[in-house]
């Protein structure tokens, strides 16, 4: 069946494209500003495109080096948070789904109740605790609270519950230990959901503002979102540089999203259906 170009179809496509352009304008405007020489950014009336595009703003940002430092911090924190969250949550979900131990139901109930606790409510006591543990201004201090994701344990446990026991029974006959069963039966069978969960954990860790903002005071330990919060003050009103840092700060995840769009779209769908 060949699709024909009826009026509603054309109108939908045009409307969709217009809305898409509107949604991109703030980013394009930031890009345009970042390519202007500083005096042109504060000229009135505004110019849509730089008259003589220059990469000066990017050059001075990168020479200054702060952004690179924050990029390294964000990468370390986000990668480790993602790996640790997946590891700890997979093991816990397996434990709740496939093993019996005293108090299992009660403890799982407690974990589910933990989903209700908004992280924002915990900032004050958590900071006190981090001070006591000497973890302020450390990677561990930034990471550990983010690794606790009861919602992930819940989602994975439900997913594991749906996997037939025949597979692991077969593996067990072959002499596989439970540990082996986790890694060579459960994990391969849940790869799509683990990829989706992993991508969202990564985006969440990369973009987390409130907790890293509270637990870091040393600029050399800051992540990109926290470090950029101080940029406005330190650069004064140099808009081309501010926009250049904003775009460089946002670029890594835009690339991740462009590469993994299919997984992200499906992941949100899965999360929504389960939620």
């Amino acid at each position, binding site marked *: 069946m060949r699709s024909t170009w009826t009026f509603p179809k054309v109108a939908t496509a045009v409307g969709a494209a217009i809305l898409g352009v509107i949604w991109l304008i703030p980013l394009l*405007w930031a890009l345009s500003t970042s390519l202007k020489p500083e005096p042109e950014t504060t000229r009135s009336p505004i110019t849509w495109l730089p008259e003589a595009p220059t990469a000066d703003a990017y050059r001075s940002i990168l020479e200054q080096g702060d952004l690179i430092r924050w990029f390294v911090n964000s990468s370390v924190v986000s990668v480790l948070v993602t790996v640790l969250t997946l590891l700890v949550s997979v093991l816990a979900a397996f434990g709740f789904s496939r093993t019996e131990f005293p108090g299992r139901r009660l403890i799982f109930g407690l974990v589910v109740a933990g989903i209700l606790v908004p992280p924002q409510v915990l900032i004050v006591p958590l900071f006190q605790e981090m001070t006591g543990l000497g973890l302020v201004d450390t990677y561990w201090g930034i990471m550990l609270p983010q690794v606790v994701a009861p919602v992930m344990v819940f989602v994975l446990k439900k997913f594991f519950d749906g996997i037939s026991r025949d597979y692991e029974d077969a593996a067990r006959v072959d002499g596989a230990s439970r540990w082996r069963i986790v890694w060579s039966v459960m994990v391969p069978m849940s790869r799509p959901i683990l990829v989706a969960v992993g991508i969202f954990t990564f985006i969440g860790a990369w973009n987390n503002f409130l907790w890293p903002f509270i637990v870091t005071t040393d600029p050399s330990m800051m992540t990109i979102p926290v470090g950029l919060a101080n940029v406005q003050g330190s650069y004064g009103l140099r808009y081309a540089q501010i926009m250049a840092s904003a775009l460089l700060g946002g670029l890594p995840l835009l690339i991740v999203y462009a590469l993994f769009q299919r997984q992200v779209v499906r992941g949100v769908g899965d999360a929504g259906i389960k939620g």
Partner: protein
Amino acid sequence: MSVQMPSRQSWRERWAGLFFVGPFLLLFAVFLLWPTVSGLWNSFFNTSLAGVDQEFLGLQNWREMFADSAVWSSLKNTLIFTAMSTPPLVVIALVMALLANRTGVLGWLLRFAYFAPFVLPATVVTLIWVWIYEPGFGLVNGLLTAGGFAEIDWLNTENRAMLAVVITTVWWTVGFNFLLYLAALQGIPEQVYEAADIDGASERQKLFRITLPLLRRTTALIAVLQLVASLKIFDQIYLMTNGGPNYATRPIIQYIYQNGFTNYRIGYASAISYMFFAIIVVVAVLQFKLFSGSKEDSA
């Protein structure tokens, strides 16, 4: 099955599970349960951040909180933000999903454009939007003056600042709801529309008689998720207006933050945290009621 096994084996069998849940439970206990409990405990003391000389206050923090007009005004700001941001975040997401539910290059580009802002950190978003709202040479005021209108100092005018934050928030986060709607749309079987085609239904009839009714449950889900997310507003407001002008946009979480980290009143900040926590729990329970009650009429 394992009844006949030797007792050594069954001891291992009984406790092996803890080995798997152990690492998570340890972190859960230390970084979620403990701060939850110690927060409640602190709310009955006049704890300062230094942690020296705690003095038991009983309900004094709680009494002070209910009499504190700043608590109520920041709670009001939070509710105003929630009321202003939730409807557009649901409606625009639905429109986007209806427009972008297509395959091919255009579909890919639309999904990129609509969702791209969501993957940006709060700070990147606010740096860009503060610049857009800038008086004199920002994009919005540049367009206003070019069109012969008067400039508006968006972020420094009391009854404009919240609107400016809401617009930024809609741009930033609508993509998530858009993807939820998109997944729901793609879950509607093609045969439903084919049957409607055979009956000679117009595009308009298909939209209003089939698509929208089938999305009712998704809409309820998105609305409630959005409600809870909006109540937790802090990042954008803190970064764009710092709660101003004249505290007109300060949300409840910023007031908690100020009490804890600027005034070093841990006990008082904890009491306010717990009141906010209670509100979130009430909304979540209502959400649960709503969804367990409405399940049958959607199936």
